[in-house]
């Protein structure tokens, strides 16, 4: 049992922190936020040269082979500075699917480019009306003349606006809601029949509605085993949830510190408002919420790197559920304690608040993960099926 970070991890954290402190102040970020794209190619490139894009990627594909605990540190730092770059969809979700389910060819072709920052990915996790359930897939893929033809719609796809490559789950058998019958496809946004609508989300990020109209895809674009994509998708989504929880911890910590600072400096009724016991106790409860979240975010990071799928599910959903509650409490109380200042866009308080609200709902809200946790004791876990090396060729 050891809760300390390694030398390398501490160095990683230091270098990320140093970079962000210097290059990602609230004012700099605001300029990106108000730009058309909502993020910055320069920052993206800089994050890549810091090695963050290659962090989760195995060494053999040009990566650093980092662990989910390394990722915890990066995401926590991103949470503290409210990073706008779509790191999660590309480096965690997209790369993760390739790492855990891609063919040798796919990995060799794509992972090094992701690691260098040259290729961005996005994963279309949800469909209209499907809420947070990964098995609510109604997009259809049928085989036609040696190709796959995709038809359907995907909703609120994070990072799709700037993605060079999408992963699109589609149904190759069964009905909406079935666990079996989901296959994952690599789809370039430029493919004929793919259209999208980009929009900002309330946390300053971007997402897209994606429509697929008779989109023809080559057979080697399948990631993972046909019909058995759900287990892979769920595994990688769990990695992303763990990362989101780490980001939330960073957000909450920053917000909490700002709030304590405000309590010490804001003068009302002839003294700092930090002398009011009700606000003191609330700040204590915010601290406890943060520390409890940090505990489970760490546990989730460790468990997504482990072998036991049931333990992974359990830890990830526990972390997301508790973090969701904590994020709402900490966010709302930080705004409340800051009073009028808390509701303006001028202070970073409301920016943290909105990002925490988004994290609360992304990849399954609090209720969703509460149910998943409650069920985790009894339910069967869809396996991440290891793809036989040549399987997809047979389909061609």
């Amino acid at each position, binding site marked *: 049992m050891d809760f300390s970070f390694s030398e390398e991890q501490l160095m990683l954290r230091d270098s990320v922190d140093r970079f962000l402190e210097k290059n990602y102040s609230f004012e700099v970020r605001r300029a990106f936020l108000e730009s058309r794209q909502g993020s910055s190619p320069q920052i993206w490139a800089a994050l890549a040269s810091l090695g963050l894009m290659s962090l989760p990627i195995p060494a053999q594909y040009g990566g650093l082979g980092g662990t989910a605990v390394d990722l915890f540190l990066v995401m926590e730092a991103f949470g503290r500075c409210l990073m706008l770059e779509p790191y999660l969809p590309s480096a965690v979700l997209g790369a993760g699917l390739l790492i855990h389910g891609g063919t040798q060819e796919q990995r060799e072709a794509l992972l090094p480019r992701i690691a260098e920052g040259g290729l961005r990915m996005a994963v279309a996790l949800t469909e209209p009306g499907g809420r947070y359930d990964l098995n609510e897939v109604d997009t259809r893929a049928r085989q036609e003349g040696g190709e796959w033809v995709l038809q359907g719609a995907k909703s609120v796809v994070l990072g799709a606006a700037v993605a060079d490559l999408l992963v699109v789950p589609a149904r190759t058998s069964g009905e909406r809601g079935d666990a079996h019958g989901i296959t994952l496809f690599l789809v370039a946004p430029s493919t004929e029949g793919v259209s999208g609508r980009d*929009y900002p989300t309330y946390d300053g990020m971007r997402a897209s509605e994606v429509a697929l109209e008779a989109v023809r895809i080559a057979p080697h674009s399948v990631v993972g085993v046909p019909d058995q994509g759900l287990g892979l998708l769920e595994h990688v989504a769990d990695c992303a949830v763990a990362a989101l929880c780490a980001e939330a911890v960073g957000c909450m910590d920053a917000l909490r510190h700002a709030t304590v600072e405000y309590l010490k400096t804001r003068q*009302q009724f002839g003294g700092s408002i930090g002398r009011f016991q009700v606000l003191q106790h609330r700040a204590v409860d915010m601290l406890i919420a943060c520390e409890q979240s940090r505990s489970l975010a760490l546990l989730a990071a460790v468990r997504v790197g482990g072998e036991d799928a049931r333990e992974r599910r359990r830890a990830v959903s526990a972390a997301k559920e508790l973090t969701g509650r904590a994020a709402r409490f900490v966010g709302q109380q930080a705004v409340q304690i800051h009073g009028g200042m808390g*509701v303006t*866009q001028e202070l970073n308080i409301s920016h943290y*608040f*909105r990002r925490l609200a988004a994290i609360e*709902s992304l990849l399954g809200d609090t209720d969703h993960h509460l149910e998943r946790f409650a069920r985790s004791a009894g339910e069967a876990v869809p396996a991440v099926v290891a793809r036989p090396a040549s399987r997809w060729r047979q389909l061609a």
Partner: protein
Amino acid sequence: MDLNYTAEELAFRAEARAFIRERLPQEISRKVLEHKRLGKDDYVRWQRILHEQGWVAPGWPLEHGGTGWTPVQRHLFEEEAAEAGAPPVIAFGVSMVGPVIIAFGSPAQQAHYLPRILSSEDWWCQGYSEPGAGSDLASLKTRAERRGDTYVVNGQKTWTTLAQFADKIFCLVRTQSTGKKQEGISFLLMDMNTPGITVRPIITLDGEHEVNEVFFDDVEVPAENLIGEEGRGWTYAKFLLSHERTGIAAVSRSKRELRLLKQICSQERRRGHSLLEDTRFGDKVARLEIDLLALEITNLRVLAADRAGRPPGPEASILKIKGTEIQQALTELMMEAVGPYALPFLPAAWGEHWLGEAVGPAYAAPLAARYFNYRKVSIYGGTNEIQRNIVSQMILGL
């Protein structure tokens, strides 16, 4: 004990309902019911319709243009108006400065200002808060210096709601800086066109422009614009804060929003059934509905005591605390209900002239912004912490 309305009350309700059904413009009610942004025109248009009927200021004495309604009648009118999607009457004129002018203004002030409030000729805003004086209002610093027949005002106000629309502002200003800090405060009316007044927007977390900073730079205000006596402004301000009781619990609006929440839930589906049938979500809605039902009765109990002639009291703080908690919870549940489609943020979509297509269901578009916007309700008009201090002191004697 009779929790049914009397025949007279029911007749009044029918009259109010018929009037609203006939006269409330559909363009306006649709905006309200669909959480679209309202413009100044919308408010003024509805207020003028109310004024034609003589119903714009039910809280005023009859002789100044009030309605003579009982508290229960006022409550019924509010219920009907909220239900139908009428916009609220902007409080600053009718409910705030109006009663102060009636109680403490000179006959000349009354004759000049009151009719202009009733006719919506003047849009008022409130100059109370300052950057250093939020909850601790009495420590305000904006100075008004008497020079002959004029006050010269310097300083800054903030959180001034809808000042961008305002013709007039009523301000608390410091006319004396020695003695107890409450004692040197005066209550001053100003024209927003007076040279030296600058309005700067504050954009709030929902991306909206609702509040402002107002700067005063050697603003010359005629001394006749002083309300009552110099140095007694704190008394008038306290009168104003305690005066307006009806509607503070926002029960009628919350009932409308609860109905909307249930509509949304009945349309949102989760794994093949509606969200209202989902035990987990349905329980949250039911618990909130129970809280609101209780607040509705609590509110009526306070109104009834009002009619019995008891003075308005700190129970208003209880209504405010519980009312805002419920309003905030409603916005939370609505946002949760629509799942991932709460995320898209297109402020244009709840503007006036939006012709585009919503991302996801149309009702989802403004829900996150509303959740964010409603964080203010537990802050403004005295934070809920201040309200609890008031109840602790005034009711419990702690």
